[in-house]
């Protein structure tokens, strides 16, 4: 059977692999050789699930959004990742990776962050385990995400500004990779999404797959069936989406909908809609779709949401797009902001702006009244308050 999961070499169709300089080979190879067997160890599983339960607060609810459903005349369920400790799905991955790092005997953690959500989730688990933590963040992002910088510092992490290139997420990722090249033995790199060289996309997807594992059980309870008609998620690098799709990837009757950030419009020159604007290439060690010039220079994306502001997309999603398995929709800043505010008014939930993109599809994408549509509510909007205030002049 055709599978949408990674093969042993980390390829999703033609996408994925490990396009890394030799300096990174031993680090990635150590991880590649060990990640599956470590994840299978009973002691690992037990600690992972215990922490997800007691520390993160899982399982997160699957909430039937009654008023939203009425408005759009379909059955909408929200998977409440916003209720995770630290406010987003990101922590599922950082819990998994910190335990992985411990098993591999690493005593220093590095991470990249854009908006700071993954940085906070990494700093959190490092504090939890008492491990040294360095987070790279673009100089420009440091200036515009001050509260998350403060949170990381309070949690004991060192935040190092990335001053190269365009000084945002892709450059923070470059700096983290350079740090790993310079510290190949004692350091583990906790990457924040389903991007990077093999085995990262597959490993991160597996850690996030708890999302769809829970959806299956919860939907069984609520609807008497494990499979929704559609599962919807926003895609930056694609980790919350990968987790929400994971157990449905090879179930053809479940429709997969991926929502990207159109920024000011797909053709405006200020967008982060990678599937629409990207071409096949190599970014951060992975062969995938990415936004680039004709000459192969990686370009700077734009979105009002810092978490979707990445010029590439994970190889799983590139494959879902290229194969037609996934339906890709892009949503502008304005439509996302409107949908975010609508969720506040209809359901009393303030979503992260990333998530608001996923919620915005209902305006144009119509579903049948008895369709069950699960939207992954990847994060809460506390971190975005300043953005909402500025946008709506609150």
């Amino acid at each position, binding site marked *: 059977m055709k599978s949408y999961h990674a093969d042993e070499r980390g390829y999703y169709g033609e996408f994925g*692999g*490990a*396009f*890394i*300089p*030799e*300096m990174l*080979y*031993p680090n990635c190879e150590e991880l590649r050789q060990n990640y599956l067997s470590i994840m299978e160890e009973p002691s690992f599983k037990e600690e992972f699930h215990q922490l997800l339960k007691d520390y993160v607060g899982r399982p997160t609810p699957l909430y039937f959004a009654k008023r939203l459903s009425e408005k759009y005349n379909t059955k909408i369920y929200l998977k409440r990742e916003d209720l995770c400790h630290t406010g987003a799905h990101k922590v599922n991955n950082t819990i998994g990776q910190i335990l992985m790092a411990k098993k591999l005997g690493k005593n220093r953690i590095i991470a990249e962050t854009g908006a700071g959500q993954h940085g906070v989730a990494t700093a959190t688990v490092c504090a939890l385990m008492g491990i040294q933590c360095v987070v790279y963040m673009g100089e420009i992002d440091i200036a515009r995400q001050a509260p998350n910088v403060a949170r990381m510092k309070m949690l004991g992490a060192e935040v190092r500004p990335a001053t*190269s*290139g365009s000084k945002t997420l*892709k*450059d923070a990722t*470059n700096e983290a*990779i*350079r740090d790993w*090249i*310079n*510290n*190949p*033995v004692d350091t583990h790199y906790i990457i924040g999404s389903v991007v990077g060289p093999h085995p990262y996309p597959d490993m991160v997807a597996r850690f996030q797959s708890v999302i769809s594992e829970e959806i299956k059980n919860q939907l069984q309870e609520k609807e008497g069936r494990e499979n929704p008609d559609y599962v919807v998620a926003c895609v930056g690098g694609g980790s919350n989406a990968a987790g929400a799709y994971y157990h449905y990837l090879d179930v053809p009757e479940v429709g997969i909908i991926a929502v990207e950030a159109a920024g000011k419009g797909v053709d405006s020159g200020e967008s982060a809609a990678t599937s629409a604007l990207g*071409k*096949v*290439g*190599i*970014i*951060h*060690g992975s062969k995938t779709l990415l936004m*680039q010039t*004709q*000459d*192969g*220079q*990686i*370009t700077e994306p734009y979105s009002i949401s810092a978490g979707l502001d990445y010029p590439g997309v994970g190889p799983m999603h590139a494959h879902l797009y290229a194969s037609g398995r996934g339906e890709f929709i892009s949503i502008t800043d304005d439509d996302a902001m409107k949908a975010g505010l609508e969720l506040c008014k209809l359901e009393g939930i303030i979503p992260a702006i990333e998530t608001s993109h996923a919620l915005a599809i209902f305006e144009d994408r119509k579903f049948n009244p008895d369709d069950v549509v699960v939207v992954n509510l990847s994060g809460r909007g506390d971190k975005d308050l300043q953005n909402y205030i500025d946008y709506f002049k609150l």
Partner: protein
Amino acid sequence: MNRIKQKLQEDKKILSIYFSAGYPNLDDTVKIIQDLEKSGVDLIEIGLPFSDPLADGPTIQESSTAALKNGMNTSLLFEQLKDIRKTVSIPLILMGYFNPVLQYGVAEFCARCEEIGIDGLILPDLPLDVYKEEYEDIFKKHGLINVFLITPQTSDERIKAIDDASEGFIYMVSSASTTGAKQGFGSEQSDYFNRIASMELNNPQIVGFGISNAETFEQATQKAKGAIIGSAFIKHLTVNGVDGIGDFVKQIR
């Protein structure tokens, strides 16, 4: 015979110099190559600038960024180099990241290299297995030598596999680091240099990363066939422009 192979047969230590094409000025490429040859350098690595050079330290990041700002791109570099073989005979290697090559089209890129008289490529993020499966035939068809890197962390087994896949020299990265000049080499480096020398590989090794002056060149080439200078030369260009390239080379040997 490929000019790189020919040069490696000479009974001497190889001095190779790297620079970013399009830096400090867009049109300096040919002059830098000519002056390096005149100064007695043995091999030149022409850097194809990339927006996200993740194996490079600050110096080469900055020269790459500046070169791109100056307007350098793959087609323009080929245009600048089209008559280079009328004036120089030194072996020339293009060094860059894989994505710009992929966008140009690997087959077209290699064909253009052959036309111009490029002798080899160094693409650090093109992995060994992908090269062998997808691109080796194309490289060979166009007479291009592909140079692989090894580091102090590379296992003996993998070094042997890389040696088998190589046919010019092996690029021996001196330490676990990105590019950039260091203070000098310690005992860790000499252990590594000795270990590699004792493996008696088929291909000669040329050491790169952290070579900046006569002393580090001398240390690096005690066991290895040669050494590569990158960041230190770029710093020289930053300060002096294209003047005094001969003086820079004279300080090295």
